[in-house]
């Protein structure tokens, strides 16, 4: 048998607005899974409120007790005073590691360790060295890199700055001041009725000929199809990627974690079905448009 390379299995922050009991039940399952690192917190929209800060900390404690490393993620698009305050609060604590969602979180962290999040645009070695000088202890690679670019990036990365790559789930592609879910329902952003809670995997935005395209998730726009690089887990690890990220969906998340655990153990990993009606994509990895799917 071929030698298998080790890697950490991580679970990115929940990008959707789920009911509180759903979130709590989800993370109980996560605690019992093979995942190594769990990112927690609301990174998309601070109007979402069913999970109070204390609820997240309870989950953090449960996951820690189950042997998981917990990382608290800061908001990605910081414009309001509330997002600035939350960023400061998360950055100031030392109980858990922090994932910096934007440049301001790095400053607020004040030199203490952080994970450089996927939207910080760490495309080359000089940027990675800069992030490391400020305290980065891991970085999430930009989503749009192909496998050759990723290899080139790893060759330039400082040796003490491990790389994490997202491998499963709908990809977060864009952020706006505007809420597209509220827009669809003809609601204003500040009076949105929290309609995103009705869409556990976001709201599909398809082409006029019913082609899968994008997903509306409040102020965030995601891929329509779910990224699936589970079958590339060993290839990624052998390139030198240290951690593989699964992004939570309403279904398939635990199977995706299990598939990565199987791949890590050198076993054949079963294919994982995304939630009903959602296709798969892996185009970025193969150097094509991100929405493409190549069977391999």
């Amino acid at each position, binding site marked *: 048998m071929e030698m298998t390379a080790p890697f950490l299995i991580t679970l990115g922050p929940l990008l959707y607005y789920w009911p509180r009991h759903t979130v709590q039940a989800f993370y109980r399952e996560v605690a019992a899974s093979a995942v190594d690192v769990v990112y927690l917190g609301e990174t998309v929209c601070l109007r979402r409120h069913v999970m109070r800060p204390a609820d997240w900390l309870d989950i953090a404690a449960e996951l820690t007790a189950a042997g998981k490393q917990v990382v608290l993620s800061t908001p990605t*698009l910081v414009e309001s005073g509330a997002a*600035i305050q939350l*960023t400061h609060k998360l950055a100031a604590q030392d109980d858990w590691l922090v994932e910096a969602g934007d440049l*301001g979180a790095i400053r607020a962290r004040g030199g203490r360790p952080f994970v450089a999040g996927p939207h910080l645009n760490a*495309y080359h070695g000089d940027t990675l060295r800069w992030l490391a000088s400020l305290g980065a202890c891991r970085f999430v690679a930009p989503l749009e890199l192909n496998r050759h670019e990723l290899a080139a990036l790893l060759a330039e990365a400082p040796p003490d700055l491990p790389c994490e790559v997202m491998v499963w789930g709908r990809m977060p592609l*864009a*952020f706006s001041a505007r809420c597209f879910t509220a827009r669809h329902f003809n609601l204003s952003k500040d009076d949105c009725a929290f309609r995103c809670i009705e869409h556990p995997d976001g709201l599909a935005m398809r082409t006029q000929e019913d082609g899968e395209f994008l997903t509306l998730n409040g102020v965030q726009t995601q891929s329509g199809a779910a990224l699936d690089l589970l079958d590339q887990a060993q290839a990624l690890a052998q390139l030198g990627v240290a951690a593989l990220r699964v992004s939570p969906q309403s279904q398939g998340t635990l199977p995706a974690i299990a598939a990565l655990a199987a791949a890590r153990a050198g076993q054949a990993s079963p294919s994982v079905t995304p939630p009903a009606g959602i296709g798969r994509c892996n185009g970025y990895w193969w150097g094509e448009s991100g929405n493409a799917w190549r069977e391999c």
Partner: protein
Amino acid sequence: MELIAPAGNLAALKAAVLAGADAVYLGLKNATNARNFAGLNFTEADIAQGVAFARQHGRQVLFAINTFAQPGRAQEWRAAVDAACRLGADALILADPGVLAYARQRYPQQRLHLSVQGSATHADAIELMREQFGIQRVVLPRVLTVTDIARLIEKTTVEVEVFGFGSLCVMAEGRCLLSSFATGDSPNNRGVCSPAHAVRWQPRDGQMEARLNGLLIDRYAPDEPAGYPTLCKGRFMVEGRRDHALEEPTSLNALSLLPRLAAIGVRAIKIEGRQRSPAYVAQVVATLRAALDAAQAAPARYQPQPDWQHTLARHAEGSQTTQGAFDRPWK
């Protein structure tokens, strides 16, 4: 407030200077800037001429090197920084921290601006880039209200530049991968959005279809005006309803906000459109120049003139304008 004008070529640069821009911004002919379009941008010989022309008229030239250096290719971005400094740039507009680090270290005296692509939306982010790289100005992403901007200006010593007119990104700049998701090429990695090489126009069943790398972005009846298929401005289906689900084809127009922007301490107003014609540049710059002069002379009595609005409306995408995030009608 300074007026900053786009220049996609030498003719546009001259038009901007003659119409009253305080500074023009431009890019080299490669992927190091966010308007990397065929037939656009400057050779070094053009730039030398353009810089000389601007200098004769007492104006500045800013160099946009505002894409992200791709893995294994940072040398191309460093070379662009070297070229800009050699050619006499008054400031470099940069987005990539690694490129900023190079520019600051190699050219300690060079004035640096943080590009809108740098995604600094609040004071902590801006101050980090000042402390780290000595940026002297930030171009703000088009996601902030005037109130947000006023609050931010109080918390930083970095000069603030905002967009005043032009095509509107509804997504936070520097963090939008929609174009590479659809085509492989994005502002971050290739300096393009919804690139022309991926666009196909196809008549079908009496309608005109606009496709981007095969994806149907919009379809127009014979009597409908058809715009360039920028993917966030197409019509799509959400729960069975056809709509501009992300954004309508609209341009930003902050003409009526100029006195407020000046009053809160905004230092410069930027016009979008390095891909637009010298005629666009001349007319839009002349209009904004007249408006800025009027706003400065008598801010309390300032009112946008109908002919200014008329001129800007002619150059607006989809002939519609909005104040965008500045006042958030959708908030």
